[in-house]
């Protein structure tokens, strides 16, 4: 069994190393066997699916009508991510999600899930819970 845990701190190292010390306690996501995830990340997957993000970004997040999230999540900061998702980029076809409760309520979990996919820690788009 491969257990891989990534902390929020690790994710933030590049962007803001100064906050490392205080962030180290909260793991962003936990993955077992590449496709079993913690409850929050599982919720992120379900929310992502329900919001129909796959229609534009592909069921595997590798891009379709919209860009590859595997790639984009490497570049976007958490704040950038939230802004794009909530406000949208209408001119490029990205709808705003400020009126989509499944997104607004679960955006942190969606972020964790997509970050796990982008990092390569979550091996398949379709995940289940850790038993």
């Amino acid at each position, binding site marked *: 069994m491969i257990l891989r845990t990534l902390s929020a701190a690790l994710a933030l190292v590049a962007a803001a190393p100064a906050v490392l010390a205080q962030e180290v306690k909260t793991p962003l996501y936990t993955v077992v066997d590449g496709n079993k995830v913690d409850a929050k990340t599982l919720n992120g997957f379900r929310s992502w699916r*329900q919001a129909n993000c796959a*229609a534009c970004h592909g069921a595997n997040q*590798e891009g379709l*009508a919209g860009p590859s999230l595997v790639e984009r999540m490497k570049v976007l900061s958490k704040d950038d991510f939230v802004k794009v998702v909530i406000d949208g980029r209408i001119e490029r076809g990205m709808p705003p999600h400020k009126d*989509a409760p499944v997104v607004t309520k679960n955006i942190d979990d969606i972020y964790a899930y997509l970050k796990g996919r982008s990092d390569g820690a979550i091996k398949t788009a379709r995940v289940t819970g850790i038993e």
Partner: protein
Amino acid sequence: MVASANADLESKMANPKNWAAQAGDMFNQRYSKLNQINASNVGKLQVAWTFSTGVLRGHEGSPLVVDGMMYLHSPFPNKVFAINLDTQKIVWKHEPKQDPAVIPQMCCDTVNRGLAYAEGKIFLQQADSMLVAMDAKTGKVLWSTKNGDPKLGAVNSNAPHVFKDKVITGISGGEWGVRGYIAAYDINTGKQVWKGYSVGPDAEMLIDPNKTTTWIDGKVQPVGKDSSLKTWQGDQWKIGGGTTWGWYSYDKATNSVYYGTGNPSTWNPAQRPGDNKWSMSIWSRDVDTGKVNWVYQMTPFDEWDFDGINEMILADIDVKGKPTKALVHFDRNGFAYTLDRVTGALLVAEKYDPKVNWATHVDMKTGRPQVVSKYSTAQNGPDVNTKGICPAALGSKDQQPASFDPNTKLFYVPTNHVCMDYEPFKVEYVAGQPYVGATLSMFPAPGSHGGMGNYITWDAGKGKIVQSKPEKFSVWSGSLNTAGGISCYGTLEGFFKCVDAKDITKELYKFRTPSGIIGNVFTYEHKGKQYMGVFSGIGGWAGIGMAAGLEKDTDGLGAVGGYKELGQYTDLGGSLTVFALPN
């Protein structure tokens, strides 16, 4: 009621020099009497002229030609050009101002299937649901009316259709929980004359429980009270789909408009137990009142997104040896239906792709498909990936219209040869948000020629494939037959092809246009010369990955998995290519 109100359009259609409606006529036959280009000389075709719309994304439908003027449309932002065929100058150009917020509300690319013409007016059905009438000579907007609420996902991609003194239009948004309807507007004022919903209370569907009929127990019988409401749980019908974005036809003799309704919302069947009537149905409505003459549901309780919106082709043919006023429909579900268009009686329902596996057959007594449990996404349940369903959600045929040749009495059908895996999941309805609830992946039909399409001829009287010509990709272009004995269509790689109508395996001509073709072939005559044309411009569902900037192949909502190779053949770009014989 003015019986002569469509005399103008009828006379324009009767002259084969024009291409005055999207299908060329009101029967949706897509047949031209022009014969200058024929089976013996079509091989000499040359490009006569080309025109760029300046818009990327999928170009469906075709231009119209009326009395020496050509009218072209584009996908969003729905530009319209009027071109004088003598000078090839743009006489007028119209670009509506639409809120770009409508772009993400359009499922499967920002396509538009074209314009309608009647009595000196051009009708445009914009993406944002505005229906607009323009002066055909000047482009001046004469009236405009709002047909739906795009904030709720009620947008438009269909072409408006003029029958009598009305312009008929539908609505899209089955993936947003839009409750479908069809509406008729006065061509002179834009005032709504009637509106009939696809699901819900009888009065709102314009169904008379005693007079409206359907196919029950081997015969045509009244539908009875609450025929739709009884087949939905609770209020689910209010967000029940049944949208109407296809091609409509009209028969003067029955004074009826014929069309189909799309999938029930959501794609997760577990959330909407029941037959979900009258989604997935063929309709006949009185064109003056909208009242429903008859209705027939092809796919009760859809579990696969087999929208029933494909065109209804009206033709007088022999059905099982008997001369019949028939309606022929090639459904997304892989069955081709022949009905008596006067009575609504079900006459033939057979597979037009031998790979169709989700149902064994259609029971002719009940009219219901016999679903195979293995491929039932409802029986397998949410969060289970049902594998190997044929056809895929985009159907054995999607909206790309087929043609009918009165000489061979055969139908010429552009088809998809694609299967899918389908995993439904629970989804919550939020107004104006996607309401899909399934993840799909699509791939070429296994155990076949490896391609994703076939061009076929179909005997609708017998329910049999006559010939089948394999294609590498889905044939997503509307076909055209002519009195010259040819049948022509486009391919996703971008080829414009003409085959022998008597033997479609004989390819007589092909030419590589600038982009993949999802537009419909049309023809016209100008100054004694016959021309044939087609839009190219890849996009639509088959090309959506390409249409909006695909980076890597994936299975996404489904459309790209099987089409990943397309990128080796074509790229975006909307243009018209017009062909003629050399002087």
